[in-house]
């Protein structure tokens, strides 16, 4: 019996919805244009902006595992640090001349090593409750922290890795004191990885992740290879975090144990939840706002900025659901209700 008939109207609609998910909304395009424009709007703050871009990338990696696959993890910071040290060591031993110091190769080295370790430890997050996974990933992160500190002969210990000298990007642009090259480089890398992530989550693979997040038992029951998917997304997220670490090492030109410290994971998760998990932009927005607030508050009160940040967090959670994106969503729908249906 031939199944080749013209698609039913429902199927056409379903296809349109599925394909339409990949269209770029106006707000998205505006975001990226603004990011590029920052190069000219804030020429004196480019180091900070590079840092924000890198933080955004880490938050993005957390979003992939947490926002889309529902794996609660406090371990992304470890991959960030591993990527930073891997790329840093590559650049250091390449001594600015050989292929090892090329920044792009450094990115792959950083991301690759992190992805490998992510893959190797992915079995840890397959079982257990939220709390279990939180603690296991935290434990792994803390172990990585200790290992880095202990392996002084390789990592320079608590003094950090000195002499990280990446060569020019694409052989043309050298990292300058003003942070110009660093920002453009970080932003481009972020954008490219973002587009890939976006395609990933809009794809059937991404949809299956959301199904797993919603109800793992049921997803298994319909025959989906849940473990394989989780391992895949965890490895990809580790790669992303590793690349972010590599970026950090290259743009700051050193790596220190602070890069594997627990607060990196905590900050990334914090920024993601602050921005709103599960929409890919939450991490980016969260990083921008959180880090900017930290900088501004830090200038106003170098000692007590933490207080105001804490107040903001508490207020945000008490009054809004879903972080900043949730807040924007509320405002938008309120505005629409007022202006639209009358």
């Amino acid at each position, binding site marked *: 019996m031939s199944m080749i008939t013209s698609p039913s109207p429902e199927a056409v609609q379903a296809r349109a919805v599925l394909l339409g998910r990949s269209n770029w909304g106006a707000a998205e395009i505006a975001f990226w244009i603004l990011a590029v424009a920052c190069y000219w709007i804030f020429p004196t703050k480019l*180091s900070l902006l590079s840092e924000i871009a890198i933080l955004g990338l880490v938050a993005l990696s957390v979003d992939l595992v947490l926002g889309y696959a529902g794996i609660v993890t406090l371990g992304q910071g470890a991959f960030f640090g591993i990527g930073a040290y891997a790329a840093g060591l590559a650049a250091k031993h390449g001594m600015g001349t050989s292929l090892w110091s090329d920044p792009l190769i450094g990115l792959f080295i950083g991301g690759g090593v992190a992805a490998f370790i992510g893959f190797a430890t992915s079995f840890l997050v397959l079982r257990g409750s939220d709390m279990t996974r939180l603690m296991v990933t935290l434990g792994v992160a803390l172990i990585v922290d200790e290992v880095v500190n202990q392996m002084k002969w390789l990592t320079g*210990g*608590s003094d950090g890795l000195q002499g990280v000298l990446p060569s020019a990007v694409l052989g043309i642009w050298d990292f300058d004191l003003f942070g110009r090259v660093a920002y453009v480089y970080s932003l481009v890398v972020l954008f490219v990885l973002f587009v890939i992530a976006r395609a990933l989550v809009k794809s059937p693979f991404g949809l299956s992740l959301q199904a797993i997040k919603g109800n793992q038992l049921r997803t298994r029951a319909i025959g989906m290879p849940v473990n394989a998917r989780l391992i895949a997304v965890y490895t990809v997220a580790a790669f992303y975090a590793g690349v972010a670490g590599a970026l950090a090492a290259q743009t700051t030109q050193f790596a*220190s144990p*602070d890069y594997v410290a627990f607060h990196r994971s905590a900050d990334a998760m914090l920024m993601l939840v602050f921005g709103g998990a599960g929409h890919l932009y939450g991490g980016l927005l969260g990083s921008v706002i959180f880090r900017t607030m930290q900088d501004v508050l830090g200038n106003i009160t170098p000692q007590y900025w933490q207080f105001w940040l804490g107040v903001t967090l508490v207020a945000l959670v008490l009054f809004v659901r879903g972080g900043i994106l949730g807040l924007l969503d509320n405002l938008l729908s309120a505005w629409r209700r007022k202006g639209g249906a009358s």
Partner: protein
Amino acid sequence: MFRRQILKSMGVAGLALATGISAAAAQETVKVGLILPMTGPSASTGRQIEAGARLWMAQNGNTVAGKKIELIIKDDTGAADQSKRLATELVVNDKVAFLGGFGLTPLALAVGPVATQAKVPAVIMAAGTSTIVASSPYFVRTSFTLPQNTAPMAQWSAANNIKTVVTLVSDYGPGLDSEKAFKAEFEAKGGKVLETLRSPLMNPEFAPFLQKAKDLKPDALFLFVPSGQGASLMKQVNERELAKAGIKIIGTGDVTDDDQLNGMGDQLIGMITSHNYSAAHDSPENKAYVAAFLKANNNMRPNFMSVGGYDGMAAIYKALEKTKGDTDGTKLVEAMKGLSWVSPRGPMSIDPATRDVTQNVYVREVKKVDGQLYNVEFATIPNVKGSN
């Protein structure tokens, strides 16, 4: 027509001059950017240095060689990538003529390349590892180095019937520096270091290490922990009754930090340490310094970090006087080389070859003076070099 052209070009040239990139050279205000850990575990270091720096400015005015000095304080939370970013911003945006501060070794090392690239002198007011100053030709130190403060302790021990020592240090740059310096000096004088113990930097429990030291039964236990951890370390030393077991407790002055000493309890009386500064240093300069510091800072006692800040500003002022206000970085560093003056800590100078600080190191004993605990100096080793 001609006149207009000349005027125009003069105007353009004038504008170019005025907005020239070597901004510092043409300014009336000279900015000094201090990068300090104002929050986080090393926050007390940052506070002390800031207080010391501000006290200098309060006592000496804020004008030098016709230029107005403006102090900018930035918090790097003790994270090296922050220090680097802040240093870059200070140099590029605020166009500071001097960088300063650096509460820990990795923070200073991170800023080195920035100072070198921007040709801005960076005054190390706290960090103590010996290798830092060599990492950039623009580094000048006014604090101390661990070998500088440790070697006299080893010498004193060897000369005072101590034959075996166990060392316990925090496992990071300055700690390892101190351990190495002590061992080298002590063994050169015929002593023996039984074991070198290292406790993790972020460690809440010293107990197992102290127990191990006690079990080894040395003549003395040498301690080093960063400023701020001394209290909990000594609490556990006392709890374990090491002194009663016949083990002499010695260490560098970081452990009997003036900031905390008074609250640490009478069991410390008798502990011998070596360091470059004690609030009880008997000189007119120091008495005036301590009195003014207490008054300006709500009865907070100054410690060795604060003189790092105080003398750091002194070096900056003196350098500017020597260059008559010229803020060219290379000239300022040259001006700082060889400077010498009497600080509250005693006489000190900047070694022209290494740009490190040469100063007296004192051996002190914890005693009760006027109802408060102080490190009372009883021996002086003059003019110890910071690094070779």
